[in-house]
């Protein structure tokens, strides 16, 4: 059967490929490749034909290069901090028992799903002149007058780390969960002390996760503008902010295109380097054992690495043996107190600002700490304002639309990639995942240009299309993972038991895939619900989505109304995660 297929592809098969993969390919060509291509063209083209004027201007002064360097610096430091502090958290989550894992994961997920805007805004309030930190330092007598904690490198870094730490933790966790817990134990019986067992066994196995987290965080960070715009000063301007300025202030498409090319170039270099070193396949974070690592890393490098890890192991063990011995009577599987304290402190730091927003939103005293009195005034203001309610409705509508559309065209594509023998699967996958790699801002500006030409600016439909482009890779990835784990023998069993194809689909396939489809719908919904970059240009005024409205308000003034909106969003997300988790558990218990 297989050989017959290889010799001549039946026409019907090609048609089924087109039917399953066509819509997604069309979407990406029309709303990713074409707009981005347009933008890049604009950068080398003006009324009189080919020109490099934009690039000359870009490198004429050191201004833009400096911004690029600052962007790289912020992104690198953010990545480093996220990976280094996220590692122990992910490790802890992967080793603790079921109950505590659920608790820890809830806080990571809550932070992950809370809008970047809400979290950045919370830090503005927290670090402000009358914020909690200043008040605390004053009352402790450490400082005598409020320090200015905002609009510097430190505040940007705090905001960036807060924004991206959950992503780093979740990425590393996906790899750590697949590491066989018997391996460190086996190392212990073979004579390795805990430090050695960690550095020589656990750590190398967790490296693909570290690498995947590193690149995910870096690529997201390099395209960030919310945090530097809200928490940074002039010296923390990042490159995407320049693109926004070019579009919003001067409508200079050509120059925006040139900056985009620069940004894209940097991102591609990073990916190429990553691929050379580790292979892009590790990015999906599935491989427990690095498939081709030993052959890729040349012998001497591997040797040096081994010596280094042995050294780290020896040092750790020496330090552990110096510590007062608490080992007696301790369960060898229990994580240490230091690790737990660290992880909880980090989780507290990333969750606390948003939580402190809650009492402030009910206070009469504005955003000054401590909150005074109790009022529902700010909530009433929000509800009475058509701008906010319109924005909420629009966001919900666009979110649901995006979720449905992304599922509708993403799921068949996932089936195609997992189940069929379509040629060039790797290339297809790379193409489908490209919306994650290309900085969001470039897609947004390109889409704005194309939409402006065909009159889709400001329309919900245009927004749904744009959001689907950025959400669909997650849907495809989730569904592919689900389908890979799905045992096709179940389908065969069903049909051998007399179920016709449709009945099999309805009674066996979908009920089992249901959880995966639900979670990819939610993921797409949440992506859209929190999306600002595309909405930044494509909407405005009464057309604004919630994030866009939030952004317009927060860049205008920092008011308690925003605290009320933040609180609503935060609690909405908390409930959503809680219910989703409950549903998932009930499904698992069945």
């Amino acid at each position, binding site marked *: 059967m297989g050989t017959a297929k290889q010799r001549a592809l039946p026409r019907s098969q090609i048609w089924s490929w087109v039917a399953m993969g066509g819509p997604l390919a069309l979407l990406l060509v029309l709303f990713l490749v074409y707009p981005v291509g347009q933008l890049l063209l604009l950068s080398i083209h003006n009324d009189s034909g080919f020109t490099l004027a934009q690039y000359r201007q870009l490198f004429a002064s050191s201004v833009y290069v400096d911004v690029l360097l600052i962007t790289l610096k912020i992104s690198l430091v953010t990545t480093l901090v996220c990976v280094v502090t996220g590692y122990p958290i992910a490790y802890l989550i992967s080793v603790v028992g079921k109950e505590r894992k659920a608790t820890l994961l809830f806080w990571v997920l809550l932070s992950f799903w809370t809008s970047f805007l809400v979290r950045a805004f919370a830090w503005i309030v927290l670090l402000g002149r009358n914020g909690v930190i200043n008040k605390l330092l004053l009352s402790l007598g450490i400082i005598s007058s409020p320090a200015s904690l905002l609009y510097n490198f430190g505040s940007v870094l705090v905001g960036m780390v807060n924004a991206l730490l959950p992503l780093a933790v979740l990425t590393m966790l996906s790899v750590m969960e697949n590491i066989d817990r018997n391996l460190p134990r*086996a190392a*212990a*019986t073979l004579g390795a002390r*805990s430090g050695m067992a960690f550095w020589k066994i656990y750590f190398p196995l967790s490296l693909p996760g570290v690498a995947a987290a590193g690149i995910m965080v870096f690529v997201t960070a390099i395209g960030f503008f919310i945090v530097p715009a809200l928490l940074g000063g002039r010296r923390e301007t990042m490159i995407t902010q320049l693109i926004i300025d070019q579009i919003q202030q001067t409508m200079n498409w050509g120059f925006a295109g040139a900056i985009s090319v620069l940004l894209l170039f940097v991102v591609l270099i990073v990916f190429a380097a990553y691929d050379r070193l580790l292979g892009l396949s590790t990015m999906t974070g599935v491989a427990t*054992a690095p498939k081709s690592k*030993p052959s890729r890393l040349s012998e001497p490098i591997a040797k040096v690495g081994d010596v280094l890890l042995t050294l780290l192991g020896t040092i750790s063990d020496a330090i552990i043996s110096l510590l007062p011995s608490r080992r007696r009577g301790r369960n060898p599987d229990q994580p240490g107190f230091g690790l737990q304290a660290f992880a909880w402190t980090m989780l507290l730091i990333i969750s606390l600002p948003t939580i402190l927003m809650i009492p402030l939103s009910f206070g009469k005293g504005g955003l000054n700490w401590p909150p005074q009195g109790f009022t529902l005034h700010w909530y009433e203001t929000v509800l009475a304002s058509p701008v906010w309610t319109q924005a909420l409705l629009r966001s919900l509508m666009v979110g649901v639309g995006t979720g449905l559309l992304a599922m509708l065209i993403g799921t068949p594509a996932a089936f195609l990639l997992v189940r069929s023998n379509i040629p060039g699967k790797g290339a297809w996958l790379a193409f489908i995942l490209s919306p994650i790699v290309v900085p969001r801002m470039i897609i947004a500006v390109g889409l704005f240009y194309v939409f402006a030409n065909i009159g889709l600016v400001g329309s919900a439909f245009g927004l749904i299309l744009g959001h689907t482009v950025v959400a669909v890779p997650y849907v495809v990835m989730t569904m592919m993972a689900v389908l890979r784990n799905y045992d096709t023998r179940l389908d065969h069993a069903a049909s051998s038991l007399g179920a016709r194809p449709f009945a099999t689909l309805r009674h066996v396939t979908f009920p089992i895939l249901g959880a995966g489809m639900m979670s990819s719908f939610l993921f797409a919904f949440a992506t859209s619900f929190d999306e600002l970059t595309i909405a930044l240009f494509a909407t405005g005024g009464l057309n604004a989505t919630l994030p866009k409205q939030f952004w317009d308000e927060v860049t205008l003034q920092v008011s308690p109304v925003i605290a009320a909106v933040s609180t609503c969003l935060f609690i909405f997300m908390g409930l959503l995660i809680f219910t989703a988790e409950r549903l998932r558990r009930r499904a698992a218990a069945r």
Partner: protein
Amino acid sequence: MVSSSLRILELSKRYGDFVALAPTSLDVAKGEFLTLLGPSGSGKTTLLSLIAGLAHPDEGQILVDDADVTHSPAYDRDIGVVFQNYALFPHMTVEDNIAFPLKMRKVSDAEARRRTMEALETVRLPHVAKRFPRELSGGQQQRIALARCIVYRPAIILMDEPLGALDKKLRDQMQLEIKRIHRELRATIIYVTHDQEEAMTMSDRICLMNAGAIEQLGTPEDLYFRPRSMFVADFLGESNLLSATVRDVDAEGLDIVLADQAAPSRAVGNGSSFAAGEPIKIMVRPQNLHVVTAAADSGGLTGRLVDVMISGSLTRLYIAPETSGMPQLVAAYPTRSGSPPHEIGQLVSLGWNPADAVAIRDGGGH
């Protein structure tokens, strides 16, 4: 080569409310080969993990050569473990896996290489040294796990179903290999298996576990011929269990009477104490149950032949006793043409040597 004795005192382990191991005591002599046998979930792996220091007991003590190691970490115990699912390090070659314990013990590189190759020869896989674990078959991985354990000659070796994934032939080979390693290293070995035949052939003693507790501990003969409970009789090999009542107990055995039978008969004890009047079970192994064509009214126990099955060297006869309520019985004979009777439906009379009838306390099983 050193070997150590192991003593376990009232060791117990709970997971939440679930008792994975009830307080258990066990003595293993230097150089002994002890097998843990028992149904799935009976606590075998749990007991091994506690001994190895991979899990922490709730109560009790573990002594190696009379030194208390209950609280010492796994890496200090010098107890080797062959894991149920191999636990080979996926990022290291076979060679590096096997050399790992030597490196941890700071053995020189040259010496480590020599001993690694030696261990690979022992498990007959010298050609896979440079491969990664995922490039090996399940059985080969298992043998590498064995090699990694014996390479540093631990004083006590724990093996959790080390031959589970092997086919019959390789399994037989590896059993011999393990026995040879045991003789040569004179290590103390605690071995887990599901396979009762394997347990019988390899062990000095068998420890039969059930529901987190030791059901019976003794030599293979002990367990087979003098089971303490119906669970043991049932678990090890085939058995016929007949209800009876104790009449009298004397030095040599018991006077009993079978249920629904008038004639008295004799049985031997199994080490438990019995009281007159107590209801018991009598166990007769199939090979000890004699079946002869019955005369019309021979008296005694009779039954009808319901099935005859020839399985290789043994022929099994299945008999439905005439006495109502008595379960179906099985007798086994070496396969030969002619005798014994094997016409289905035929009336047969059943008997056994009193020395082959073992008394077991009723309800002894769980």
